[in-house]
């Protein structure tokens, strides 16, 4: 059994402490005993194999997979990691696109401002994670976006070809966290 908590992988194996549900099924609350210690947690299912688990004031995004489907995804993850710097930019929050500063074909440097999204009355500048070339811009100024909406896609910069190939990235690093 493989579990990924906020992008960090944990593997559950059959040795060590005992985990037991002391009380469950009451709403979303779960009392779990780990070793001798009881813990209160809350779980909300947010996707097919995705859970939001709340523990001591903090929410964790958790993916759960059995061994076989995990390996399949890991293989896919390796490919994704190879292109880590070229991951598309997605909307990190819902909001309104105020301005788009790049266009198709434009080369961008790491950290360069791409567009500005207004959310909760604040302007947020979204920047490029890595150097590359803009393959496609999916939004225009005035567009309303939801969290996770595709905003900008990139392709390898001609002069940069091949630099990011290879398997030196672990799949865990590919968790997409667009920087602002």
């Amino acid at each position, binding site marked *: 059994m493989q579990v990924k908590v906020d992008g960090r992988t944990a593997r559950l194996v059959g040795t060590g402490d005992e985990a037991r549900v002391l009380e469950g099924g009451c709403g979303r609350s779960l009392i779990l005993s780990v070793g001798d210690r009881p813990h209160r947690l809350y779980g909300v299912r947010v996707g097919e194999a995705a859970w939001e688990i709340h523990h001591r004031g903090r929410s964790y995004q958790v993916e759960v997979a059995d061994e076989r489907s995990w390996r399949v995804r890991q293989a896919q993850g390796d490919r994704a990691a190879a292109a880590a710097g070229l991951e598309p930019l997605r909307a990190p929050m819902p909001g309104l696109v105020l301005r788009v500063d790049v266009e198709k074909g434009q080369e961008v440097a790491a950290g360069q401002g791409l567009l500005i999204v207004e*959310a909760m009355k604040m302007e947020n500048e979204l920047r490029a994670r890595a150097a590359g070339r803009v393959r496609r811009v999916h939004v225009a100024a005035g567009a309303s976006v939801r969290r996770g909406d595709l905003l900008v896609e990139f392709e390898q910069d001609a002069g940069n070809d091949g630099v990011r190939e290879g398997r030196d990235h672990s799949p865990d690093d590919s968790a997409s966290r667009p920087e602002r």
Partner: protein
Amino acid sequence: MLESVLIANRGEIALRIVRACRELGVRSIAVYSEADRGAPHVLAADEAYGIGPAPSGESYLRTDRLLEVAARSGARAVHPGYGFLSERAVFARAVRDAGLVFIGPKPDTIAAMGDKVRARRLMQEAGTPVIPGSPGPVRNPDEARRQAREIGFPVLLKAAAGGGGKGMRVVEGPEGLERALAAAGREAEAAFGDPAVYLERYLDAPRHIEVQVLGDGHGNLVHLGERECSIQRRHQKLVEESPSPVATPELRTRMGEAAARAARAVGYVGAGTVEFLYLDGDFHFLEMNTRLQVEHPVTELVTGIDLVEWQLRVAAGEPLSFTQEDVRLSGHAVECRITSEDPFQGFLPATGRVEVLEVPVGAGVRWDGGIRAGFDIGRHYDPLLGKLVTWGLDRASAVRRMARALDELTIVGVPTSVPFHQRVMRHAAFRRGDLSIRFIEDHPELTAGDVDADTLAVVAAAAALLADGERGRQPARGRRAAVPPVFSAWRRAGAKWAVLP
């Protein structure tokens, strides 16, 4: 006392005002946008009226609709809360022109303090020290460059009509100025309907300390001690406390008198706050907020004075029942602003439904919240969900109590700032009182999203058990399992498990 009050606001502050009204026997009249139909402030008020679609420009900012509701409901007074229309002189004037009491200072006072450039000038005349800056708004990039050179980089761009961090930008050097000017102007226009921006010298790592004042319509005005609100991100406060860890009785008197002088200079009536930046023993006037502040509860806990109650009493024409000599500060109070923002992703605002809400109780704990379980947190309004406030005999016990209360606060369904606050309360520099408005940047460990191994294990196990349960292993309906369910993979392995990173 006033017979009734229309509350032209939403969220926790609207609920706070409803509570004060209830205690005083005043009829409370709430308003709501389409997104807030089932909001806690609506459910709590004596009456509630819809005023339009979710965007605040079509609801909470619509003076015409608010006055319509006031007429329809027979309201005698309007409380604007904070934000929205609270610092718009035209709104205060419209309320008065409609024959209603505006709960706040006179419209002219709001106008004078709302124009930050004019406020700076007034304060200088009243003998209150101000931060060096441009004498007026800067109209174009050339003028901005000229002024900035004179003041010296880094400079701070600020909306002349502003407040609350909107339309503010720090500029390190001449190259970033034009762009920042455009962005600040746009933000100022959107937030305040006025794009005018001026410059101030950016002080390096000062503290934010402010003084609460309260005046009546009979010429009495008192100051109620200070609040330190240095822990901010993007100029928005996240943690506040009273008193300030650096305030000596001598500094408190000096700042209090400067604030009272400033307030008297504009004939202040009601509750207001004079904000200062404090650096190396000196304080400089920042701005005056002519309304109730978000962080007013910490002052209430150390003075024992209910500020909202006094807003209502003063608006009803009552004189203050106490003098400056009667004001005594007792103990220490801390407030954490709980927002729907992810501290581990640069405080990105998040939306979602509150699935579970469990609020801490116990000695010395107060929760001023505006949410309930089942309520949707949308993108239209400020991300403030509620304020957790604790009191203790001294700072250390108030902080320890806050750490305890934060651990008991459970908000499931939307990421919140709670884990950030938990770290702040346990942080050595915070416990020493070693604060500045750069606190968050100076201590990146507060916003690093690392997960310790023990937590990882518990969270992973919980998710695995839940996922396993969803695969149809629940006991038959109507029958309780004799043994609590244990995760199947572990059961096969003798119900033992471990988490390997």
